[in-house]
C-alpha cells in the first residue's frame, strides 16, 4: 500500500491503479500517510517552503507568551551571587575615586616653586593664634584673632 502511494507521487502509476489506490486509502484511513508522502515529495523536488500551519502556530505561540515590561527575572540565588559580583567593581571605582581625590589635594598643596624667608612675610595670623591660645599678656589675649 505504502509502495503504491510512493509510486503515485512519483507519477509511476497507471490511471486504473490510481483509482484503486484512492479507494483503498479511504477505506484504510491512510490520510496521514498521504500527507507525509506529499511533504517528502515537495522536499525532494525542492518545492517545500514550509506550511501555513507552522507559521500560524509560531505566531499563536508568541501571542500566548506574557508581555515582559522590565528586564529578565532572575532566580533568587543567582541575584545574590550577581550582587556580590558588583562589589569588586564598586571597590575599584571607590579606589580610583580616592586616588583621584588625593591626587587633586596633593596638587592643591604640594606644588612648591620656591620658598620665602619668614622675615619677608610675617605670619601675623599664626602669631594671633598663638596669642589667643597661649599668651600670658592680657592685652594681646583680648586683641588676638578677633578676625576669625
Amino acid at each position, binding site marked *: 500500500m505504502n509502495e503504491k502511494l510512493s509510486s503515485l507521487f512519483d507519477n509511476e502509476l497507471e490511471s486504473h491503479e490510481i483509482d484503486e489506490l484512492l479507494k483503498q486509502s479511504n477505506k484504510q484511513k491512510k490520510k496521514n500517510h498521504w500527507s507525509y508522502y506529499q511533504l517528502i515529495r515537495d522536499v525532494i523536488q525542492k518545492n517545500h517552503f514550509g506550511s501555513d500551519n507552522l507559521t500560524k502556530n509560531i505566531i499563536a505561540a508568541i501571542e500566548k507568551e506574557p508581555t515582559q515590561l522590565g528586564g529578565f527575572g532572575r532566580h533568587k540565588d543567582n541575584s545574590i551571587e550577581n550582587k556580590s559580583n558588583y562589589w569588586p567593581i564598586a571597590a575599584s571605582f571607590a579606589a580610583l575615586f580616592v586616588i583621584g581625590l588625593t591626587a587633586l589635594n596633593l596638587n592643591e598643596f604640594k606644588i612648591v616653586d620656591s620658598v620665602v624667608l619668614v622675615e619677608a612675610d610675617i605670619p601675623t595670623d599664626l602669631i594671633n*593664634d598663638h596669642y589667643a591660645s597661649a599668651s600670658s599678656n592680657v592685652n594681646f589675649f583680648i*586683641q588676638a584673632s578677633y578676625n576669625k
Partner: protein
Amino acid sequence: MIYKLLFICYLFSSISISYGDNDPWLIIDNASKATRILNYKGIFHSQHNKEIKSIEITHATNNDQEFIKMNVLDGSPGAVLSQGKTIYVYNTIENNVIIQKRKQQRLFPAIFPNNIDAIKNFYRLSIGKSERIAGRLSQSVVLTPIDSLRYSYYFWLDKKTSLPLKMVVLDQAKNIIEQASFTQINMIKDKNLDWFKPEVDPSKNYIFNDKVVGQGIIKKPFWTIKKIPSGYKEVDFISKRIPGLNILSHQLVFSDGLSYVSLFIKPITRGQKPKVGHVNLGINNICARYHNGYQIMAVGSVPLITCNNFSESIKF
C-alpha cells in the same frame, strides 16, 4: 668630744628642720593660691613689645568659683569676662563688638600654674629685696632658668597677701621681653557680683561667636614629635579646617609652666610659598621650615634655640 659631736648633730638637724618648714618654693605656691582665692580690684599696666596698655581687673571667688572681669582702658575697648572655665572676650572693632568664647588662659596676675612642680625642675628660685609696688610692700623673687631654653622671670609678690604685683620677663641679654605691674590695687570684701556683667554700648552691633576655635575636631596626629626641649609638655591642641579645602591646620601648644610655644602644622595650598628661616619680633621668636607639603612653624616667647628645636621636632 662626745658633747661636741652631739652639738654638731643638733646643729645640722635644726638646719634641715628649718629648711623643711621654710621651703622657698612655698612663696610661689602661696602666690599661685592667692591669685585664685583673693577678692581684689586694681589697675595694671601691661607692656607687650613696645606697646603699653592699662587694664582694670576685678577678681572674686564665690562658692569656689572664680569670677574675673578685665577691661582694656587704653585705645580700642576690649574686655574679658571669665566664670569658672568659661571665658568670653569682647573686642570692639569700629561699630562692632565681637564676642568670642575662648579657652581659659593664665593671664597676669594669675600666671603661675596650680601645680608648681613643673617649674621647680627647670628654674632656680632666689629671693630678692623688698620693694614698694602700687603702694604695697612686696618681696621680689627671681626664677632663673637652669638652661638656655627659657627666659628669666622676676616677680614682686605682695608681702601681706602673696599676690603678684609685678612681673618682668628678661632674655639672656637682660632685655625686657614682657612686663606687667599694678599701679593700684585694693582688696574687696563685698561679695556682691553685680559688677560681673559686660558694659553694653547700644550704638554698637554685637556679634556673638559661641564656637571655640577648633572645637569638635578630633585629634588624629599623622606626625610624631621627637626631642622637644626639656621641661615642655603639650598643654593644648587646636585643629582648624582651611576654608575651601577639606584639609586641617593644626596648632600644638607646649608649656614649661611659665613659657608657651605654639607649633603649627599647616598644609601649603596651591600658589602659596612656604616660609623658611627665623625672625625675632620683639618678645616672640618665629621659626619656620617646609616639610612634605606642610608649613611647620614654631611661635613663642622663648629663646631662639628653643624655637628652632620645636620647629625641628616634627616628623612625618
